[in-house]
């Protein structure tokens, strides 16, 4: 099995492999085409049509039309290469055009004898499942290749360790914390800021992740930190020093003086490498060797993913807990509450700003996650109610668009989870319908139409 994707952090050209594969497909494609076309033609004839003669006429007419349009599509000025950016178009794209273009000079001469081999209508609609429909080669007639050289081999599945959230099985895991000076933290934050895996982290998780980075001294030049082909468990940030990166085209480190392959890059202070190891255990795509005494920060996958998971898990359970307290939503099944957690959006309001304004059309429901908020009616300076963590308000907006009966003002900086009526309806359908499921249960406790 070829680990075609195991290219971390630097990619190796797969063009050579891709080209061989395409040549193989080219040959195989023709043979296959003949067999399949013949088989399908017979099938279509047998299955779908009472009048074989008329069917044959239609079939060859359609064939001709589709061949002509494929052919015309290949002619200048509609050249498919004109609009493409330079670079990118390699073996696959070029050879694909050759298949689709029997008139091209470089196409094998016998191609003319096999006009039905055009890959642009692989299993053309004639044996389609809709007996009344006629072949309409729409998307498949587009000869435009995408500007990259896609690897056409079978793709290997990937998988990381089984993870179970900490709070689900009562072990008291907390992420390791290796204390760092504030300027070290700043440097690390900057070093990982370009990595999308870190860019999405909430502040709290970012702090945990940076705290979990562990110092790893590399005392000498010539030390291998990562070995191509080995299992990958750690991601590294360079605190100081310098490293060379080598790739052996064979896919792994080999014995001998040139076993590391070609030097492809160099990483210095503030750089990082090995980030694919934060996703799953893929073989290392390169060998990394120190060129001087250096210091690294290391982070292992399980720690990283557990931090993300535990944060997400805690947040979801918190939301579900809050939602379970809302009488209006008590007829929701637990999986529905779980689903709703996906639609909740965290929003922060500074102290003094209004979360809800009296008279406005109500469209969102809010749960207070952090801070304190107060309820006021227009023209009345007395605080009618105070909300703290876990309280919710504005839930009637999920039922109707009635104007807000009061304003909710943030007393401190607050964090709320917002659920829009459209989001709710989109995920679970109409709330009124949901409430009707166990009407007689809720009728006594909540009558939303009178509560307002």
């Amino acid at each position, binding site marked *: *099995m070829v680990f075609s994707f*195991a290219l*971390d*952090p*630097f*990619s*190796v050209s797969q063009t050579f492999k891709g080209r061989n594969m395409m040549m193989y497909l080219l040959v*195989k*494609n023709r043979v296959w085409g003949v067999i399949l076309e013949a*088989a*399908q033609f*017979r*099938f279509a004839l*047998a*299955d*779908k049509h009472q009048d074989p003669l008329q069917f044959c006429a239609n079939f060859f007419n359609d064939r001709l039309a589709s061949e002509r349009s494929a052919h015309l599509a290949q002619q200048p000025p509609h050249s498919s290469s004109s609009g493409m950016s330079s670079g990118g178009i390699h073996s696959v794209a070029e050879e*694909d055009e050759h298949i689709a273009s029997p008139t091209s000079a470089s196409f094998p001469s016998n191609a003319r004898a096999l006009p039905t081999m055009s*890959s*642009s209508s*692989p*299993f053309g609609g004639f*044996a389609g499942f809709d007996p009344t*429909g006629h*072949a*309409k*080669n*729409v*998307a*498949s*007639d*587009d000869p435009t290749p*995408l500007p*990259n050289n*896609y690897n*056409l081999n079978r*793709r*290997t*599945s*990937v*998988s*990381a360790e089984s*993870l*179970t*959230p900490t709070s689900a099985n009562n072990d008291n895991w907390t992420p390791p914390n290796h204390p760092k000076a504030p300027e070290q933290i700043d440097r690390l934050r900057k070093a990982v800021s370009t990595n*999308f895996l870190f860019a*999405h982290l909430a502040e709290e998780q970012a702090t945990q992740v940076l705290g979990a980075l562990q110092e790893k001294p590399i005392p000498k030049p010539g030390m291998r930190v990562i070995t191509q082909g080995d299992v990958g468990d750690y991601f590294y940030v360079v605190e100081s020093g310098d490293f060379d990166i080598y790739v052996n085209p064979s896919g792994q480190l080999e014995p001998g003086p040139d076993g590391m392959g070609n030097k492809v890059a160099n990483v210095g202070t503030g750089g990082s490498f090995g980030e*694919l190891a934060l*996703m*799953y255990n893929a073989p290392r795509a390169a060998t990394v060797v120190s060129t001087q005494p250096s210091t690294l920060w290391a982070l292992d996958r399980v720690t990283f*993913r557990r931090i*993300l*998971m535990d944060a997400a898990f805690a947040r979801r359970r918190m939301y579900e807990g809050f939602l379970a307290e809302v009488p209006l939503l008590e007829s929701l099944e637990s*999986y529905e509450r*779980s*689903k709703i957690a996906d639609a909740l959006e965290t929003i922060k309001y500074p102290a003094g700003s209004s979360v809800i304004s009296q008279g406005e059309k109500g469209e969102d429901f809010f749960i207070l996650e952090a801070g304190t908020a107060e309820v006021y009616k227009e023209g009345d300076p007395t605080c009618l109610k105070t909300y703290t963590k876990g309280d919710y308000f504005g839930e009637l907006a999920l039922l109707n668009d009635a104007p807000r009966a009061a304003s909710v003002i943030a007393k401190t900086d607050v964090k709320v989870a917002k659920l829009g009526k459209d989001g709710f*309806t*989109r*995920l*679970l*359908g109409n709330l009124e319908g949901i409430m009707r499921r166990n009407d007689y249960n809720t009728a006594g406790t909540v009558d939303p139409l009178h509560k307002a």
Partner: protein
Amino acid sequence: MAAAALKALVPPILHSSAHDSEPKANSQTNGQQQPQSSSPPPSNNAESVQYDRAQEWKPPQPSPVSLSEIAKTTDFGHSSQLRPDDFTLLKTLGTGTFARVWLAKLAHAEPAEEERVYALKVLRKVDVIRLKQVEHVRNERNVLAKVAGHPFITTMVASFQDYDSLYMLLDYCPGGEVFSYLRRARRFNEPTSQFYAAEICLILEFLHEHEGIAYRDLKPENILIDADGHLKLVDFGFAKKIDSRETYTLCGTPEYLAPEVIRNTGHGTAVDWWAFGILIYEFLVGQPPFWDQNPMRIYEQIVEGNIRFPSAMTPDARSLISGLCTVDVSKRLGNISGGAATVKFHPWFRNIDWDALYHRKSKGPIIPHLRGPADTRNFDDYEPEAKNRPAYSDELRNRYDEAFKDF
């Protein structure tokens, strides 16, 4: 002895459907496999036989089954009666990181069983443990046992184990992988793509809404074509029953991973709808929408979620793929209110007769060319198994074999 043991395990439908082309033959099976509606069997069967396949092997005609009946067919025991040497291994059909699938037949079959071939998936315990896939393998076996009998899912006939390996005996699906046909053709035309996508949609609807199972590894490599041109989903290595809670373990295939899997924020059945969108795109375009030689760049693109469509792609196809490949799961088609039905009602599927499709009333767009039930021409050749692999030890056995006891 082996044949008898097998017969005892196999639900009646599997025996009869393999050898009888008359759908009626199944009606004796304690009423479990009755068609949902009383509509007559497809009328084109007889014709196609006369015309086409006089000298060829006649593919089995599985009888229509209903979703609710399938949901009840969960009574698969593990089988210590079967042993690996009950089987003759004929050819490797596929390999994975810790498994190899063989075409196999019973070594000492009763006369009626002599021609019957199976796909035997062999998982080496030492590799399963080394690659930390114990939980996934258990899930696979349990899920396959639960979903056996669905028209578009590979049927597990039995599972068993010996000292160092786990075995899953599956129905053989002779057409080979959709992957092979797709790569050969470069891309599928729209009706072909619609047909296959529609069958996958029915599978996802069944897995999600009847079984609460997320499949988690949708891709053309895991979809086989049967003798009638219909699909069979195989490889349930990552399938998992998801109750009301999300799950976190990263798994799948790089180009098909959903954004929430990459970000580890918890995922559920919605990942299959994302992958379904990627799959339709790959059918129509010939390659998935997110690609880079460096996998981290693939993941970066996935999390951003901007898909570029070729100019020739129809607006309906774009709309469906965009709806499925929506980063926000609370807006993702298939996951929103209405579930799979919202996907089935999408205009791109307007030509699909869902009921007829489920009951396999017409043949698929590609009919594999087959000489007989054991023909392997549609499968690629694989390297023989490496020698000198690490062996299972008593130490590992004492530590881990408990986890395999239900196999």
